[in-house]
């Protein structure tokens, strides 16, 4: 079984929520407010199937999905 991990770059994330809404597995959720930027940052909260949609559609190059298909 392959495991995928989603990394969020908190310096770049603007808390738009696209990744959370686009994820087909509801694997992401917001986790508090980042005091450095004032934006909410998502975190991984469920199983990721590695589809990469959150990475493609994050407008701020703030997501990296790691793990091979």
């Amino acid at each position, binding site marked *: 079984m392959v495991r995928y991990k989603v990394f969020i770059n908190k310096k770049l994330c603007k808390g738009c929520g696209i990744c959370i809404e686009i994820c087909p597995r509801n694997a992401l959720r917001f986790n508090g407010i980042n005091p450095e930027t004032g934006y909410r940052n998502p975190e991984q909260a469920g199983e990721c199937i590695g589809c990469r949609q959150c990475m493609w*559609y994050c407008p701020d190059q703030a997501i*990296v999905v790691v793990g091979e298909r």
Partner: protein
Amino acid sequence: MAEHFGLKYLRREVLPTAFCPGCYNGILMNALFQAFMELGIEDLKRFVFVSGIGCSSWIPSPFIKADSLHTLHGRAIPVATGVKLANPELNVIVIGGDGDLASIGGNHLLHAARRNMDLLVIMINNQVYGMTRGQAAPTTPHGMITPTTPYGNPERPMDVASIIAGTNANYVARWCISQYIPLKNSIKDALSRYSRGFRFLEVYAPCVTYVVRREGKTPGEKLKELMKKCVRIKTWREMSPEEREKHVATGVFKAEDKPGFIETYKKYIAQALGEK
């Protein structure tokens, strides 16, 4: 921590971008960078980016790590033409808005396409003048309320991709920002299989702040809506006029590989110099 594939093409010191949270301009940047990566383009030394004025014109300058010219509103294409003529070895890419390229710069766009000038032009159709707060543009849908059309836009939008397909341009495509993979593949084609002449990509990507939020939607909800609203050209043609208004026709409108202006002009110069 693993690194995003786009970061090596960006000037990290100026990030995050100046775009509003959720602005779809950043998704186009991902598609562009992924196309570079898949084409094996390591750095952008042989590229020059030219833009005009507007939010979309900020994509290359200052964010992309390459030489760029941030020119006047509407005038990116004539400047890009000058760059290409001065040094035909360079890959010249214009990125700009619908207002910039189709409104104030519309005539430049039309005639560079007619000449089949060796440029790749990427036009972000966000349906409004985003930078100046969302006034109506020639691409604004009929009936849309904006600060300059408070009772709904009385005009109908122009179909820029179809107009450019009617010129001598080699390659013309339109994709919605929700069609990430075909958009990325189209950028790759416009830089590899169709690397000469005029190549035009219209990217349908409503302004998140002045179109999407005004509709009461989040950028994520709108993306999912676009996934249904954007259909292939063939499907769109088979629709009733009412259905067509509710959808966006996307796909490749034209793909040819005729010699571009530069090649033709080089021959012309040789002739004038009496060479065979």
